[in-house]
């Protein structure tokens, strides 16, 4: 038994080493950082212990801007992308011909580099002295004014960010929802048909409750993912997100850590922990709500 035990731990050793050094230790450390006041990364010294880092971060206009941006992003993209993915998945499940082709196409954004495709979105929406860009061309067809979506007004920038975020998260949601829809036994639909149930009622009363655990899973992961948005914004607006007014909470953390405004791991830690607390709270609220509305078989 002793030898067996040793062997078991031996097999686990590499994983424990990696996780210990790069996950467990940092986790503890980040809390310590967040309470160390006036930490200097060069001399590795600090003045005292307290909540100053948190109060600094919470009063930093850049952080508040990032907080606002992130919340708007979450509130707009999570419901829209989930609802739209549900619509597409239901449509996809109702067809036979070309289904595989559509599925393959829809999945493409998942395997592409967020930064790279973000550049394409940027040139589609950007207005330069040479060209108004394709998006503005389309707006022009409908008689609208050309807008610079990348360096222009806040709402326009937010719009592009939301559009791109939705474009990026759709593949995962469509895939998961399609397989959930496929797992609903056809016999329920037959039973509903024999009883003269309308299409809409079948969807609301049968399909939706049956896939509710999946929908709910997507909403939770959607919230978490959107709260951690960062590279989408970088792709569209460049690395200096504070200047663009389009920073996100995660972006704020990284900027505090590194780059032109960097060198403040304590502020970064405090911001990261605030983010974690927000995500945890929202997830808990989600879980509570789901108790009432989700059917787990």
């Amino acid at each position, binding site marked *: 038994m002793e030898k067996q035990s040793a062997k078991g731990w031996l097999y686990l050793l590499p994983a424990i080493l990696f996780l210990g050094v790069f996950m467990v230790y940092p986790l503890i450390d980040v809390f310590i950082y967040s309470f160390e006041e006036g930490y200097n990364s060069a001399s590795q010294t600090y003045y005292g212990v307290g909540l100053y880092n948190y109060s600094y971060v919470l009063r930093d206009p850049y952080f508040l801007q990032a907080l606002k941006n992130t919340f708007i992003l979450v509130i707009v993209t999570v419901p829209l992308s989930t609802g739209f993915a549900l619509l597409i998945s239901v449509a996809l499940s109702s067809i036979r011909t070309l289904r595989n082709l559509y599925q393959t196409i829809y999945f*493409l954004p998942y395997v592409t580099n967020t930064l790279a495709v973000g550049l394409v979105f940027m040139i589609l929406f950007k207005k330069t002295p040479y060209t108004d860009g394709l998006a503005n061309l389309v707006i022009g067809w409908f008689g609208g004014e050309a807008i610079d979506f990348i360096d222009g007004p806040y709402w326009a920038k937010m719009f592009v960010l939301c559009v791109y975020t939705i474009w990026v998260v759709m593949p995962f949601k469509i895939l998961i929802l399609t397989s959930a829809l496929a797992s609903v036994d056809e016999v329920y639909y037959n039973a509903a048909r024999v009883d003269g149930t309308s299409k809409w009622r079948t969807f609301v009363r049968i399909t939706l409750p049956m896939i509710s655990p999946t929908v709910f899973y997507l909403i939770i992961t959607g919230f978490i993912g959107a709260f951690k948005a960062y590279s989408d914004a970088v792709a569209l607006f460049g690395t200096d997100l504070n200047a663009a007014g389009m920073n996100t909470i995660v972006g704020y953390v990284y900027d505090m850590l590194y780059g032109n405004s960097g060198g403040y791991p304590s502020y*970064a830690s405090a911001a990261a922990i605030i983010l974690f607390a927000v995500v945890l709270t929202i997830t808990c609220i989600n879980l509570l709500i789901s108790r009432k509305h989700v059917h787990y078989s």
Partner: protein
Amino acid sequence: MTQQTDYEKTEKSARAGKRMMNALVYALLTLWALMVLFPFYWMVLTSVKSYGAYNSEYIPQLFTLSPTLENYMEAFTAVPLARYFVNTLIFTVVTTAIMMAVTVLAAYAFARLNFRGKNAAFVIFLSLMMIPSELVVITNFVTITNLSLRNTFLGLILPSVTSVFYIYLLKENFEQVPDDLYYAAKVDGTSDLKYLLKVMIPICKPTIVTIAILKVIECWNSYVWPRLVTDDENYFLVSNGIQAIRESGFGRENIPAMMAAVVSISVPLIVLFLIFRQKIMAGVARGGTKG
């Protein structure tokens, strides 16, 4: 007889309604397919427009009659795109390889071996799944900086190796291999390591391949960590390369060359995806997430 025609009428209207519905469904699906494909089309299109032609288009043209490959030459010569490629390749291959070894060993320990403290260890592993990477990145950055591992492959790779989720996924798969095989092998005097290599891994190959592919995608697209620990362009990965090109590359706004670079770094993964389509989609459906 009137009854009969009545039925035929309902039948007819039902069929017409169904056809309408079908047309709507296909219209919706096609619309979204176009939305998905358009950025890809646009990047390929722009990448084959010449610099002059692109900049003289005040109204963007939806196709070009004189495609050129000069932007690709430009992309690979004006910036070290090839270097970014090689870096990403090394990073991806080494990270995935180390992760696979660590994951397979840990999953085997949890699935097959009995040892004291196993259940407690597994609970701790599971709870680590919930830790967001943003939280640990800060200390990792400090650690790597203090170890003077910035701008090295080691610094890039080491913190990217761990993945609790894949250990969990593989453990579940390992547990489906019947116990009898293990006892039979033990009776024959097979060692644990040999059993793992000769029996478990071949049987669970589909899952292992899936995990490897998912990790490759993750590595190829990773941006945040490489950005933090590299500022020497000799160690840039493609994501950072693209970002650098965006900020300063190709002089002033050479968008066709930029798009050529974007196409070049997107192609490998798209090809990989088209080859392993079924495996990747099944793997992601089983619980992969982006990034």
